[in-house]
């Protein structure tokens, strides 16, 4: 099992990653650090765990899907 990580929109282009799998992390913030090799995190980045908005100190578990994206602009 591993954690599936996704980046969307401008953040995907900035980070240069769309999807990546990682292991051995305990929080969403650690997911960011490992997936991006500790890239600086823009202040307005949002995070979702298993399709629900979460915080960067939210816990993640094996099999979770963690997504990072900029402020939403639909509608």
């Amino acid at each position, binding site marked *: 099992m591993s954690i599936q990580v*996704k980046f*969307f*929109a*401008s953040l995907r282009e900035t980070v240069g990653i769309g999807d990546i799998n990682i292991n051995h992390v305990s929080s969403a913030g650690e997911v960011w650090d490992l997936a991006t090799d500790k890239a600086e995190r823009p202040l307005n980045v949002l995070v*979702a765990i298993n*399709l*629900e*908005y979460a915080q960067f100190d939210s816990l993640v578990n094996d099999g979770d899907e963690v*997504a990072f*994206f*900029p*402020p*939403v*602009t*639909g*509608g």
Partner: protein
Amino acid sequence: MSNYIEPLSFDPWQAIVKHQQQADIATKFGATATFIGSMRDFNENVDVSLMYLEHYPAMTQGYLDKLEQQAKQRWNLLDTLIIHRVGEINPADPIVLIACWSAHRRAALDACSWLIEELKHQAPFWKKETTKNGERWVAKNTDGL
């Protein structure tokens, strides 16, 4: 209640009529409130010739379902319909349709207004615009005024 993501151009008025006929609410509703968001050919004082709408499919679906359920719990609605475009969008094309049906006007009007505001704040869609200077991501929603 119904919602879906639409990858192709659509006619919101036809969608409303079709849904109304299929939903078996004829003779029950006395009010239909609708919001249709369409693409402008300008944004922040720059001409925009094309837009690309990206989304996070599974999360978007979950949030549209959740918003419709919350609206139905909060207001006395007979039915709701949400359609949201993704992909390439041209100026004047509809981007989003929200329709609410109720027996009396206040529930439909208030729910429709609430749904578009919540959708804009929560549903994971992102707009990328093509301008004469190249492409740019829309950084945030306007305040709607």
